[in-house]
Each structure stands twice: as C-alpha cells, then as structure tokens.
C-alpha cells in the first residue's frame, strides 16, 4: 500500500470521525449557542464516546477479520461468520444475567471467553486450512447455537425484564455509552488492532502454505493461538459494550486486500482503517432515520453488508463456472 493511499484512508477516517461528532449539527449548534457548557458536555459525554466506539469497534472488526481470513487462508472467514461475535454475545449474556456479573469487568470477561470458545470450537471443527464449506457451515452452526443459547439464557434469567433490557444491546448499539465504557472497549480494541498488525509478515508468509511458512522460521501454533486470543479479546471487549455487529469484519478486509495487492497480512492495518470508516459511516446512517427514530447500527451494517455478501457469492459462482 502506498503512502498516498494510507494518508487518504487516514484523512477519510478523521473526516468521518469529525462528522460523527458534529452530526446532527443543528442541535449541537443550538445547544452551544444557548449554554456553552451544556453543548460541550453533550459533545464530550454523548458524542465523543459514540464516535470513539464506532472507530475502535470497526477497526478491531476489520483487523481481526483480516487476520482470521489470513489464518484460515479463506476470504470468507470473519468474526461474525465464524461465530466469534455470537459467542461473545452469549458469554456476555451468561455473565450478566445468569452469573450476575454485570459490571464492565464481568461482562468483558464473559464476552472474551465466549469469543475464545467459539473460535477454538471452529478451529477444531473446520481444521487449520479450512475449506470454504466446512468453515461456513461450522461458523453457521456455532452462530445458531450461540444465538439460541443466548435466547435460552435470557428466558431463564432471574430478571423478568432481561429480554427487554438486552434487546437494544443485542441488536448492536453505540448510543448512550459513557466515556468510561467507551474506553473499556476502545483501549483493548486499538491495542489488539496494533498487535494484530505486527503479525503481518507471518500471515503474508502463510500465503505460501503452512509448510513453507514453518520452514521460513514462523512458529505456527504460537501464531494461531495468538491471532485467536487477540481477536477474541478485541472483539469480546467491544461486544460487551456495544453488542454484536456484523459484516464489517467480512467486508473491510476484502477492500483492504485490494490496496495491498492481495497480501493478507499487510491488509490488517488498512482493514482496520476501512473497518473504522465503515462503522462510523454506518453509525451516521442510523441518525438519518425518519421521524427522529434511531435504527440499530447492527441492522444498518446488515442491510449494507448482506447485499455485498450476495454479490460475493455471485462472483464466486461466476469464477467457479469459468
């Protein structure tokens, strides 16, 4: 990736971030005009955490999507399709509603363990160099199971309001999180993104096949466990705060690899930037819903991501038929 493309991505990201802070502009302008302190408080307490969460959650989804795809040598492996986000949601729900650890630490620990569980089950099910079919079927099964168990957990929860309470979170939401909550997700997410990007060389070499990468001197077991744990921590921390949000982890790496001439490892950092941009853009879309309503962001990413996924399927079919 050239420096120009990197700077263009960085500038886009900054613009979207600024736009996320400023939109809707009218309300903010009115507030600042009426009571400057109140306006700044809204900016700092409401909009800043939201923008930070969109940026860091998108970034970690993009980065872990790219890393997981490189690891499985499969362009369709992503945190949501592998059941990682579903597992994290289940872990968080179990921790909060069944075990009663609803503090940020308990929620995050539950989500990270759930994500880890899902990824290790998938590794065991689909094998190291996963075929598209086994990976997708395995991921589908894990997602479905995690979803069903999440519902069971909510139904059996001591609190009768568990469903109502968890609904907004389950759909994915960046709204009304405090700056502390945002930091709880954003700090691990950004750290994980940078740590994953450090594995770029190893993951690029994996393109030559596992045997060749090992002969080059990379330790594959360590790499595999490292990527799985990092992804689980990053994605888990974000799911604990914002719920499960799909498709960004699938789409961002696919765009990113177009910028790195197909290199899967080198695509991690651009995938993080694209993921952050996509999530911020999706969050902006949720604000244009009519009649002052707000769409859940998970619905927006699915509405935009699912057609893209369909396009991928059509393209794959076309290339197989060639």
């Amino acid at each position, binding site marked *: 990736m050239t420096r120009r493309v990197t700077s263009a991505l960085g500038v886009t990201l900054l613009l979207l971030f600024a736009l996320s802070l400023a939109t809707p502009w009218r309300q903010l302008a009115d507030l600042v005009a009426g009571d400057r302190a109140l306006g700044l408080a809204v900016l700092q307490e409401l909009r800043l955490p939201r923008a930070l969460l969109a940026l860091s959650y998108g970034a970690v989804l993009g980065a872990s999507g790219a890393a997981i795809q490189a690891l499985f*040598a*499969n362009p369709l492996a992503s945190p949501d399709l592998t059941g990682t986000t579903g597992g994290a949601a289940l872990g968080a729900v179990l921790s909060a509603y069944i075990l009663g650890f609803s503090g940020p630490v308990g929620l995050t620990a539950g989500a990270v363990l759930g994500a880890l569980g899902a990824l290790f089950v998938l590794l065991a099910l689909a094998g190291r160099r996963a075929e598209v079919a086994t990976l997708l079927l395995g991921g589908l099964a894990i997602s479905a199971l995690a979803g069903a168990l999440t519902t069971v957990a909510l139904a059996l929860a001591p609190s009768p309001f568990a469903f109502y309470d968890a609904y907004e979170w389950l759909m994915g939401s960046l709204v009304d999180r405090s700056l502390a909550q945002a930091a709880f997700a954003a700090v691990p997410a950004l750290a994980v993104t940078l740590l994953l990007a450090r594995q770029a*060389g*190893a993951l*690029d*070499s994996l*393109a*030559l*096949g596992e*045997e*060749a990468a*090992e*002969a*080059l*001197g*990379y330790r594959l077991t360590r790499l595999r466990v490292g990527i799985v744990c990092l992804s689980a921590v990053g994605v888990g921390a974000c799911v604990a705060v914002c719920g499960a949000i799909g498709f960004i982890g699938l789409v961002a790496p696919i765009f990113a*690899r177009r910028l790195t*001439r*197909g*290199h*899967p490892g080198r695509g991690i950092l651009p995938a993080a930037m694209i993921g952050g941009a996509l999530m911020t853009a999706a969050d902006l879309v949720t604000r244009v819903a009519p009649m002052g309503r707000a769409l859940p962001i998970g619905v927006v990413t699915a509405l935009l991501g699912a057609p893209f996924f369909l396009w991928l399927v059509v393209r794959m079919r076309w290339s197989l038929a060639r």
Partner: protein
Amino acid sequence: MTPLLHAEALGLPGRLAPTDLGIDAPAFVCLVGPNGSGKTSLLHALARVGKPGGTVRIAGEDPEAHGPGTRTRLLTYLPASRDIAWPLSAQDVIALGLPPGGVADPAVEALETAEFGHRRVDRLSTGERSRVLIARAVAPAPRLLLLDEPSANLDPKWQLRLMGLLRKLVETRGIAVVAAMHDLDLAARFADRLLMMKDGAVVADGAPRALLESPHLREVFGIVRGSAGWELV
C-alpha cells in the same frame, strides 16, 4: 572442514524412522522412492516442519536458532503443493521468500518468471506457477535447497532447464540441493547421489547409475529396466 549438512536422528513419529544424513561437499542429492515412502517426511525433518526429532546443522549452524529473515540464508523449502490461497502477483510471491529489503539471487532469472511477474499466480498455468514457487525458494540463495518434486507439472523443456539450473547452483554457489523426484532417469542424469527410500527409511544411498542397476530398485519400486524402458516386475 565443516560439512555442508550434518543431520542426526531425523525422525517424525509414524512417518520417518530415525535417519542420519550427511552432505560434506556441494552436491545435488535426489530422494527417490514409491508414494508414501517418506521422501516428503525427510524433507520436512530437514526443513524443521511439523516438530521433527533430531538435529540439523547447515555449515555448522542450527537453522532453528534462526528466526524468519535469517533462516533463508541457511535453508529454503519448496512444498509439493503449488496452491497459493491469495491473488498475489508472481513477483510478490518470489519476494515473500526474501527477508525485508532482500535482493533475489540473479540465478532465478533462468526460470524466466519476469515475463509474467505482474500476473496473478492463480491465473498462471500450473507449470508457470511451479516456476514461480521454485524461484521463491531459490531467490534467498540458501546453503541447503530442499525441493519436493520440483519437476512436477513442468513440460520436458522446463524439466531439463530446471535440473540444469539446480546443477549449476551446486557448482557455482557451492550449495547442497536435496530434491524428491519421481522421474528416475532425470534424477540419475543430473544428481550426484541418490537416496532410495521405502517405508519411512533410507534403504540405499549411492551413485545414481549404480543404484538404479542394483537389486534395490526391484525391491523398492517393483519395476525393472526392460528393452522399452521401465517395466513392471
């Protein structure tokens, strides 16, 4: 003098019985044997793939003491699979074999991959892709070049050119080449030494012509040389 390769008790459970292998001076060594005889396993053990037992010293150095970036000075390995999962260009694949900022050994030019250097490897023919992957292994100029069926998928002209290149590397660069081969005639014509394998062990080791005339051939492969070429026993 430090031998080029000194390997002791190489082994992979269930695949390769404990094997010693020494190569003192630059040489082109071919591994021959039927399918499943342990050729790939021996290459894996030498390349330190899949947690093999035993020790390997290349010009006195332990390759496992070297991480990515410097290990390719000692050894490189071409696996039997010619698949690349990602749409990389041919020149990018060759660069993946080099340490950051490394320059390819000019010897790879003999493989003539530059003419399709910008094309995606998944859009090349299998033979062209094989040449790219061989170039990837040759590019870092290793002391020990390990190749699993390097002539597979190549047309007759390129088989001869490849074997000629490997010979030249041995003579001009002073390296050791260890290649698993199925074409016995090609191996006999270009190699300095043949290792014949059966059931995960080396059963014969010697000069190519002598080995192919020996009774080992009949035992190991179940073929003999007849008037029309190789024939079943």
